[in-house]
């Protein structure tokens, strides 16, 4: 067990980057009103309505760095599951040679179709992580759940399970952001902005692949930004 903790610790920091290697920390932060989201805490929406988040889980894959438009690094085996319940999953550490310069990062929000059809995989891709649809194969790329009085559903719940890999319902989204070199990068996901673009009074139960999932996933991807 001690050994296991040690390994986790290693993954959590960049301090052990060896020799001529450097490591870029990417921290993902869902925010509301400019502050990090606290799960199960109610937030005000426009006009006196309120909203609370219970789950924020999202796959980030295929992380690639660019310099002046040219690809300089592609992370190998790049599949990460962010889970807001577990702070340490929200930071990713990308190791690279310190001769590499970059000014942009690109990643996918979700899991590509080849990986989605490759059977039982391990690590963050393990179907036991609860991010794989059981009755119709495929990963749930992002899962956002919570409650709002706007949702006329049982317990005012909303469940946005954004997935689907097959054309024309491929919900995977590409995100590309300009980033500063040599610093810790905070990628914020302003959920207030996201909710201003999605009508959760109507779209509060997305549980299967389809155009609804594609459209909402696109809106979610559109709010990712680098904290200045």
């Amino acid at each position: 067990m001690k050994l296991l903790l040690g390994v986790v610790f290693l993954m959590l920091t960049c301090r052990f980057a060896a020799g001529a290697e450097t490591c870029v920390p990417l921290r993902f932060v869902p925010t509301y009103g400019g502050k990090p989201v606290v799960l199960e805490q109610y937030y005000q929406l426009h006009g006196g309505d309120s909203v609370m988040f219970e789950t924020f889980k999202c796959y980030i894959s295929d992380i690639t760095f660019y310099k002046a438009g040219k690809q300089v690094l592609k992370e190998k085996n790049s599949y990460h599951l962010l889970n807001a319940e577990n702070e340490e999953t929200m930071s990713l550490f990308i190791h690279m040679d310190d001769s590499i310069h970059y000014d942009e990062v690109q990643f996918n929000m979700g899991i590509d179709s080849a990986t989605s059809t490759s059977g039982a995989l391990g690590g963050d891709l393990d179907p036991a992580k609860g991010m794989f649809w059981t009755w119709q194969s495929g990963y749930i790329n992002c899962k956002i759940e919570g409650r709002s009085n706007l949702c006329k559903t049982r317990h005012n719940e909303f469940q946005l399970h954004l997935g689907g890999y097959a054309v024309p319902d491929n919900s995977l989204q590409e995100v590309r952001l300009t980033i500063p070199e040599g610093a810790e990068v905070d990628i914020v996901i302003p959920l207030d902005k996201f909710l201003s673009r999605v009508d959760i009074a109507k779209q509060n139960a997305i549980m299967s692949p389809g155009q609804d999932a594609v459209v909402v996933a696109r809106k979610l991807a559109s709010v990712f930004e680098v904290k200045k």
Partner: protein
Amino acid sequence: MRKTVVISILCSAIALLSFTVKKQLLFTIPEGWPKPVYDFKKNPLTEQKIEIGRRLFYDPILSRDSTTSCNSCHLQYTAFTHVDHRLSHGIDNRIGTRNSPALVNLAWSKLFMWDGAVNHLDVQALAPIANHDEMDESLEHVIKKLQATSTYPALFYEAFGDSVITGEVVLKSISQFMLTLVSANAKYDKVKRGEDTFSVKEAKGYALFQKNCASCHAEPLFTNMQFENNGLPLDDSLKDIGRMKITRNAADSLKFKVPTLRNIEFSQPYMHDGRFKNLSQVLNHYIMGVSHSSTLNPRLQKGVYLSGNEKTELVAFLLTLTDKEFLYNTKFSYSKK
């Protein structure tokens, strides 16, 4: 020096040989069959892994209240289908919406379920485990239960080199067992290999089969692995649109996965909703029950004409697809170990 080299070459040759012999025992492609779809490189078969899969297949620990196992709906003696039930029965006696298909030659299948909802054999087991009407469990919880047993952690350690059980290894083990369910030793196969001959009736039936049925139930697997509409009228209470449920493409309306006909003698009732009790009803459907709709397969638009005698002959041929060796192979039965 030279001696040791020779010896080590010899040793590795023997190791290699015994390795290939062993491999052959675990899975062989029957002569003349196509290459399997399943990528064995990503999940190489071993005896221990197959054995875990076999145990899991027969273990009700996979269901919420430990009453239902895979075997509850997929019985070996009926080619791993659910005999006598039109729609499968699961936990709390709840009735599902479809008839359980036979589990044979799954290594050659690309998509699973009547509508192809499952895209890989490895992730197939997730569906019944989580289905409210079947086993009503979650893989996360199954893993906790397995980890807490006195037997499984050691078995997984032996097979995968780690006693920490993950979803990946549970699913891969179940796949391993299912991959070994190869049926290729029916009378039909023996005739093809020149070890036996058809009776006159069977031979006539074979010709009728090739003319009327083989476009979909293609040899040697007796399925072309496609989704087809074979003219079953829509059941108003189930309203099952088949493949279209997954692709949401109207061109796939009422299309279902073409099932294999191997061991068809024992896998009644027939069709996705188990609507036919016997082969005579199935033939009557093809002769006079085909419902015409826009997605009906062109072969069936032409109609199937069979006299009373021809029906008997065709059934005689279908019975040559029974593989007793498969149905009674103790390697596929409940593990007494």
